[in-house]
């Protein structure tokens, strides 16, 4: 993300970058159709599909009845027929009625048919908290999907990736669950639209990206917290700590090559996510990195995550959500610097 500003680069919100990426994908392939609740005239509750029904018609941007299992199931049927449906789930908390269709059908169909039926479905899910919403509007369900064989799972953190990764997800012949950090939709960033399916720095959809180099500790995150981690890295550098920040981007499969290289260098790993800790991605990554790099690790991998609670009401959400201070505390723990657990076995 450090490349020079190219002539085709412009400042764009995250939301607009997704919209541009969807438009580009629809132009590229007439089999790409969008399906979801309120995505037509309204352009979706977050306006991600703004203007697309007007330009591509109601057969390409399809307002569906209010039934997520129905949306997912009919999208599968469209895929059988040769379409590439892009499904919008209105909020993270409303993906569960479609869970059966996703884990028992979308994920298994290619395997079930010995590769004869492809399901090039993209399931877009605005996820995460921090926008003061009511219950069910701030969830981080990514671990459920990352545990489901047959799915690929991605999470984007910035407008440029939003623009290119949504196109890569749609072009992929496997089903992709695509997480968009809703609290970053209004963030602006440079987007180079001269690249279509390729990212400006050539990274494929399965690759993690080193967002900031460092040598003391590796800090891994994805989606909404990447920005927070970058801020934390700046704050840490003020204290003389050099943090390498990695944006996971692909949550399944995880790009362990990139993570391993970093941890071999730093010997210390911190993982941050909003989802509850138990059974979250942090544990999986910690375990896998421990397996792969045990003798390089100078400290147990540290997790900075949401608690094992239902997402709390909005007045309390910033207690639940890892913020800059909590991430820095995790960094301190990994480094054996004074931290909130100092004096306990875990904080040394």
């Amino acid at each position, binding site marked *: 993300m450090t490349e020079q500003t190219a002539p085709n680069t412009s400042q764009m919100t995250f939301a607009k970058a997704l919209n541009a990426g969807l438009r580009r994908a629809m132009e590229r392939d007439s089999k790409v159709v969008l399906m979801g*609740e*309120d995505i*037509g*005239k*309204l*352009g979706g*509750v977050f306006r991600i599909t703004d203007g697309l029904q007007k330009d591509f018609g109601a057969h390409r941007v399809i*307002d*569906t*009845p*209010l*039934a997520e*299992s*129905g949306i997912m199931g009919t999208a599968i049927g469209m895929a059988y027929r040769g379409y590439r449906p892009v499904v919008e789930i209105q909020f993270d*908390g*409303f993906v*569960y*009625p479609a869970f059966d269709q996703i884990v028992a059908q979308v994920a298994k169909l290619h395997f079930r048919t010995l590769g004869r039926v492809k399901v090039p479905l993209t399931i877009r899910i605005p996820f995460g908290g921090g926008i*003061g*919403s*009511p*219950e*069910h*509007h701030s969830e981080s369900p990514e671990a459920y999907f990352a545990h489901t064989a047959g799915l690929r799972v991605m999470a984007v953190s910035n407008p440029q990736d939003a623009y290119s990764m949504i196109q890569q997800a749609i072009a992929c012949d496997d089903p992709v669950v695509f997480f968009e950090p809703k609290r970053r939709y209004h963030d602006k960033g440079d987007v180079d639209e001269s690249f279509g399916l390729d990212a400006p720095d050539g990274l494929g959809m399965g690759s993690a990206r080193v967002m900031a180099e460092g040598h003391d500790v590796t800090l891994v995150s994805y989606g909404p917290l990447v920005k927070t981690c970058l801020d934390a890295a700046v*704050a840490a550098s003020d*204290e003389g700590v050099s943090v390498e920040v990695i944006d996971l981007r692909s949550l399944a499969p995880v790009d362990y090559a990139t993570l391993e290289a970093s941890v071999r260098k730093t010997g210390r790993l911190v993982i941050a996510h909003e989802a509850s*800790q*138990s059974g979250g991605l942090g544990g999986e990554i910690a375990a896998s990195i421990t397996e792969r790099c045990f003798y390089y690790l100078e400290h147990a991998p540290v997790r900075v995550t949401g*608690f*094992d*609670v*239902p997402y*709390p*009401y*909005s*007045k*309390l*959400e910033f*207690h*639940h959500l890892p913020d800059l*201070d*909590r991430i*820095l*505390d995790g960094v301190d723990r990994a480094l054996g610097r004074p*931290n*909130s*657990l100092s004096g306990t076995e875990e904080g040394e």
Partner: protein
Amino acid sequence: MRTEVSTYHMTAGDDGSPIQLLSPDGARHRHERYDRYLADVEGDDGAQLLVSLYEDMVVARRVDAEGTALQRQGQLGLWPPFVGQEAAQVGSARAVAADDFIFPSYREIGVAYVRGVALPDLVRQWRGNAHSGWDPYEFNMAPSQVVIGAHTLHAVGYAMGVQFDGAETAVVTYFGDGATSQGDVNESMVFAASYQAPVVFFCQNNQWAISEPVGLQAHVPIALRAPGFGIPSVRVDGNDVLACLAATREALERARSGNGPSYIEAVTYRMGPHTTADDPTRYRDANELEDWKERDPIARLERYLESRGLLDDEVRARVAAKADKVGAELREATIHMPDPAPEDVFAHVYAGPHAVLERQRDHYERYQSGLAGAHAEGGH
């Protein structure tokens, strides 16, 4: 060859038009079947009851307006206006007995008001101070449900429990036109019919599910759905408080007398935005709103009351004063509502002890006190 084999059918006016007992101009239509549920609003004795319906509707509308205003002023995070749906909500809720149990969606704030819920508890969740307001067992009313249609199954299960208990309680569940497309709402009809559970399905067809017109969910009247499951239904004018009251009373009577579930479609209109976060001008015609304003549920009842000489200036003034008072109280209570405590993040996740969560809570407390110390020292 076309045969009606079911004793279950949809009751409606000609061509499926909704049953109307009060027309928009305030005229009272007699109705062979439903009038018997309105004996107590007839004659002089009915005056007080009618005026109290009017009062509830007016005050409910004020609660709603206040909610919107509080949201605009940043006192609430979100608000789902029910303006236009006062007849459907007040009319049905007034039919429900105190020990009947209600499973609402998120928009039934008018129902909760009728139920007697304390004012701050009407807005608590919209302020983000909790995920719910009132005690479900105090008001025999479940918390509002955000996941579309999920609660209709809870209503049926509760009704099954009532039945197993041999109790005379009935259950009412509220949901929208959009909700009728959800698997859960259909499964709830399967279960209700299978066990003949004492439950009333009350669908407020307010014509819209956010930006989607009801025609996207169904090309036929919503109330036609139920008979195919073996549940009798009725289509009523949802802006007619008497029709809503009568139909709900009939359905509750059926439930209590062991005759199983019923389905009511109240045809109404969402006069406001979906929520305060919504901008309906993006998807709906201004004329539509104008048309529906002519069918306003409160104006209609006013005309009827006037025609019966029940709405003089004094009554108007008294009701307006009550609305003002409730509005002011709601505002005060909202603005001064104390914030939840940080440790509430960990409260009530489980009824019993949970070592992993308690450890997280302890770590967070430790973290916070450290942070407090660090802040005192000016550290990061």
